[in-house]
C-alpha cells in the first residue's frame, strides 16, 4: 500500500511539468504571461514531492520502489520500460527540481517582455520532464529516450533566440556534437543488450557479476561496453574532445545556461557513469579511460577559463572543468565523491550563472573588461556571487570545500598521483579564475559608462535561496554516511570508505591552493600589484593558445568540416563533368540519329501518322476535359472506383 502510494507520487513528479508543457505549448497565446505561473505551480508540487521522497529515503533506509511494464513484445522476447526510486534517483530528483524551480522563478524577471515567453516556459518544463525521466528510468532504454529528449530541448533552448545567427549555430553545434557521443552510447547499449539481453539496471548489475564469474562474458567485452557508454557521457558532459559545444551554448538565455549547462543536463553524463558504475567496477581499462579523460578535461578547461573575458564563457569553461572533476572522481573509484560534487556543484554553479545573468541584466554587457565597480549598485548579486565563488574555490565552511576535498581524497587514496596532482593544480586555477572574475566584475571603479541597477525580486530571491543551499549543501556531508549510504544503494561495495578519506595532507593542500589562487587574483585584479597585461605579453604564445581555446574548433574545422565540404564539392564537380558529360554526349548522339530518322519519318511515316494524329487530336480535344489538374479530383475518381468494386463484391458474393 505504501509502495503504491510512493509509486503514484513518483509518476506525478514528471507528469505535472508535462502537463504544464502541454498547456503552455498549445494554449500559449491564451495563457500569455501566466505561462510562468503554470510552470511554476507544476514544478513546485514536483519539488515538494521530491523532497518528501528524499527525506523518506534518508530516514527509511533500504527500500527501492520499482515499476516495470512491457513496452514492445515480439513473440517470446520483448522490451520493458519502467521507473524506480532509489537513493541516487532521490538525490538527483531533488537537485533537478530545486534548480528547475529556482530557474523558472528567476526567468520571470529575466525573460520579461520576450515575445516567445510562454514557449520559453513550455521548453523549460519539457526539459525538466525529460531530465526527471532520465533520473527515474530503471533501464537503459528509457534513460536513452530521455537522454535524447534532453538533448533536443537543450538544442531548442540554446537556439531560443534563433533570429541571432550565432545562437542558432550554437544550438546546431551542441546538438551535433553531443550526437557524436550518443552514437557511441547507442552502440554500447546495443552491445549490452546483445550480451545480457536486458536493459534493466538491477538485473544487469546482477548479471554482470554472475556472468563474469561464470566466464560467459570477458573483461574485454565489459571494457568495450564501458568505453562506448562513456562516449555518451563525454558528449553530454562536455568532456574533451567533445567539449567544444558548451562554451558556444552560452548564446542561449542565461537561465537556460544555469538550468541545462550548469546543473542538470551536463550532470547527466556524470549520472550515467554513476548509474552504470557496476560495469566500470569490473572493467579496469574503461575506468582508467574515465579517470584520465576527466582529469585532463578538468585542467584543460580550467586553463582556458584563465584568459576568457566573457563572463558566461568563464563560467562555461569552469563547468567543463568541474564536470571533469566529477568524472575524474568516478574514474578513480570515488563514487560518493563524484555524486556529492555533482550535487553541490549544481547549486553553486546555478547560482554563479544566475548571478551572471543578474549582472548582464543589470549592466547590459557580458564582457568583464567593460564592468567593474558593480558591487556598489548590485549588493545582493555581489554577496551571493561571492558565496558561490568561495564555494567553488573550496574554502572551508562552504559546500564546495567538502565535495572537492572528497574528490581529491578519492584520487589520493586510489594511489594515482598523476590524477591527484592534476586535480590539485586545477583547484588552484579554479580559485584564481573565479576571483579574477569576481574582482573584475564587482570591485574597483567602473571602466565604462554603465548604468547598472539591481535586478527585480523574482531574480534576487532565487539567488539568495541558492546561496543558502551553496553553504548548507555541504551539511549533507556532515550527515556524512547517510549521503554515502544513500547513493551507494544498488551498487554493492561500489567505492572506497568515505569517512577516513580526508587525510590531513589532502585537506591542508586543498585549502592552501584555494587560498593561494584567491590571493594571486587579489594581487592582480584588486590591488593591481601585478599587471595581467604584462604577464600576457610575457607569455604571449601561451596566452594566445589559451585565448583561442587551443585551436580545437579550428582543428575540427580542418579535420572534419573541410573534408566533408571538399567531398561535397568534388561530387558536385564529378556530377558536372563526368555525369553531365555522359548525358550530354548521349544527347548529341540522339540528335544525330534523330536527324537520320527525321528524313525517313517525313517521307513515309508522317503520312500514316498524320492520319492517326488527326484522330488522336480530335479524341484528345474531347478527353482533355477530364484533366482538371486537381490531384484530388483524380483521387476522388480512384476512391469512387474502389467503392464500386467493394460494392459489387458485396452484392455478387
Amino acid at each position, binding site marked *: 500500500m505504501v509502495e503504491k502510494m510512493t509509486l503514484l507520487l513518483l509518476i506525478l513528479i514528471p507528469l505535472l511539468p508535462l502537463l504544464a508543457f502541454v498547456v503552455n505549448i498549445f494554449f500559449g497565446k491564451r495563457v500569455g504571461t501566466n505561462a510562468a505561473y503554470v510552470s511554476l505551480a507544476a514544478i513546485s508540487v514536483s519539488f515538494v514531492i521530491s523532497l518528501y521522497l528524499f527525506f523518506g529515503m534518508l530516514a527509511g533506509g533500504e527500500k527501492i520502489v520499482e515499476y516495470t511494464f512491457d513496452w514492445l513484445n515480439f*513473440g517470446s522476447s520483448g522490451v520493458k520500460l519502467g521507473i524506480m526510486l532509489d537513493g541516487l534517483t532521490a538525490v538527483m530528483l531533488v537537485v533537478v527540481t530545486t534548480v528547475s524551480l529556482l530557474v523558472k522563478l528567476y526567468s520571470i524577471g529575466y525573460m520579461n517582455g520576450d515575445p516567445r515567453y510562454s514557449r520559453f516556459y513550455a521548453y523549460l518544463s519539457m526539459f525538466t520532464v525529460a531530465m526527471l525521466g532520465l533520473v527515474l528510468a530503471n533501464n537503459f532504454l528509457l534513460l536513452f529516450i530521455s537522454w535524447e529528449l534532453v538533448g533536443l530541448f537543450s538544442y531548442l533552448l540554446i537556439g531560443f533566440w534563433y533570429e541571432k545567427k550565432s545562437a542558432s549555430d550554437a544550438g546546431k553545434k551542441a546538438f551535433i556534437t553531443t550526437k557524436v557521443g550518443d552514437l557511441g552510447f547507442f552502440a554500447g547499449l546495443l552491445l549490452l543488450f546483445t550480451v545480457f539481453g536486458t536493459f534493466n539496471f538491477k538485473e544487469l548489475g546482477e548479471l554482470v557479476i554472475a556472468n563474469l564469474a561464470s566466464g560467459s562474458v570477458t573483461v574485454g567485452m565489459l571494457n568495450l561496453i564501458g568505453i562506448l557508454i562513456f562516449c555518451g557521457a563525454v558528449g553530454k558532459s562536455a568532456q574533451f574532445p567533445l567539449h567544444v559545444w558548451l562554451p558556444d551554448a552560452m548564446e542561449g538565455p542565461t537561465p537556460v545556461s544555469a538550468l541545462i549547462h550548469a546543473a542538470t543536463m551536463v550532470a547527466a553524463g556524470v549520472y550515467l557513469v554513476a548509474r552504470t558504475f557496476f560495469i566500470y567496477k569490473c572493467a579496469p581499462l574503461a575506468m582508467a579511460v574515465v579517470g584520465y579523460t576527466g582529469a585532463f578535461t578538468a585542467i584543460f578547461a580550467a586553463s582556458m577559463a584563465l584568459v576568457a573575458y566573457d563572463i558566461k564563457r568563464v563560467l562555461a569553461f569552469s563547468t567543463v572543468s568541474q564536470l571533469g572533476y566529477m568524472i575524474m572522481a568516478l574514474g578513480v573509484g570515488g563514487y560518493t565523491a563524484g555524486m556529492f560534487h555533482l550535487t553541490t556543484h549544481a547549486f553553486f554553479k546555478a547560482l554563479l550563472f544566475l548571478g551572471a545573468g543578474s549582472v548582464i541584466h543589470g549592466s547590459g554587457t557580458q564582457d568583464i573588461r567593460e564592468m567593474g565597480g558593480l558591487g556598489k549598485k548590485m549588493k545582493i548579486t555581489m554577496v551571493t556571487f561571492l558565496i558561490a565563488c568561495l564555494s567553488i574555490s573550496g574554502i572551508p565552511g562552504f559546500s564546495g570545500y567538502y565535495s572537492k576535498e572528497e574528490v581529491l581524497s578519492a584520487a589520493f587514496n586510489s594511489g594515482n598521483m598523476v590524477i591527484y596532482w592534476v586535480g590539485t593544480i586545477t583547484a588552484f586555477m579554479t580559485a584564481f579564475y573565479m576571483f579574477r572574475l569576481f574582482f573584475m566584475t564587482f570591485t574597483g571603479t567602473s571602466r565604462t559608462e554603465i548604468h547598472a541597477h539591481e535586478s527585480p525580486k523574482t531574480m534576487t530571491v532565487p539567488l539568495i535561496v541558492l546561496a543558502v543551499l551553496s553553504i548548507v549543501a555541504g551539511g549533507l556531508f556532515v550527515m556524512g554516511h547517510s549521503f554515502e549510504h544513500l547513493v551507494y544503494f544498488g551498487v554493492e561495495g561500489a567505492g572506497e570508505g568515505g569517512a577516513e578519506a580526508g587525510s590531513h595532507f589532502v585537506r591542508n593542500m586543498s585549502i592552501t591552493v584555494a587560498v593561494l589562487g584567491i590571493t594571486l587574483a587579489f594581487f592582480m585584479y584588486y590591488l593591481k600589484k601585478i599587471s595581467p597585461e604584462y604577464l600576457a605579453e610575457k607569455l604571449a604564445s601561451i596566452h594566445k593558445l589559451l585565448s583561442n581555446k587551443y585551436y580545437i574548433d579550428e582543428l575540427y574545422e580542418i579535420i572534419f568540416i573541410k573534408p566533408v565540404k571538399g567531398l561535397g564539392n568534388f561530387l558536385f564537380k564529378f556530377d558536372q563533368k563526368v555525369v553531365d558529360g555522359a548525358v550530354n554526349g548521349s544527347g548529341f548522339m540522339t540528335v544525330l540519329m534523330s536527324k537520320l530518322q527525321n528524313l525517313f519519318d517525313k517521307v513515309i511515316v508522317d503520312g500514316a501518322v498524320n492520319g492517326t494524329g488527326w484522330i488522336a487530336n480530335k479524341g484528345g480535344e474531347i478527353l*482533355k476535359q477530364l*484533366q*482538371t*489538374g*486537381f*490531384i*484530388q479530383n483524380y483521387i*476522388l475518381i480512384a476512391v469512387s472506383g474502389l467503392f464500386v468494386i467493394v460494392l459489387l463484391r458485396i452484392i455478387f458474393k
Partner: protein
Amino acid sequence: MNSLYFYTILIVSLVLFLIGVYGVLTRRNAIGILMAIEIMFNSANINLVAFNKFLNLENSIGIIFPIFIITLAAAETAVGLALILSIYRKLKSVYVEKMDLLKW
C-alpha cells in the same frame, strides 16, 4: 468475445482509413494531405497487428512488418516534405489547387 474485440479493432482501423481518405480528398494544404496519408498508413498497420494477434501467427510477421512500414512512411514523409518545400519555393503556396501545372 475475442472476435468481438477483433472486429472492434477492425472498425477502428476502417474509421481511421476513412478519415485519411476524407483528409486526402478535402484538404487544400499539401502538408495536411501528407498527414492524412500517414493516418491511412497507420490504419493499415493496426490491421496488420490485429490480424497477427487474431490469427496467432508464430513468427510475428504482422508486428514486424508495420515497423518496416513506419520506417518507410517516415522516409516517404521526408521526401514528400522536401517536394512540398521545393513546390513552395516555386509557387509560394502549398495549396494543392495552385499545383495545376499538369493541366491541359
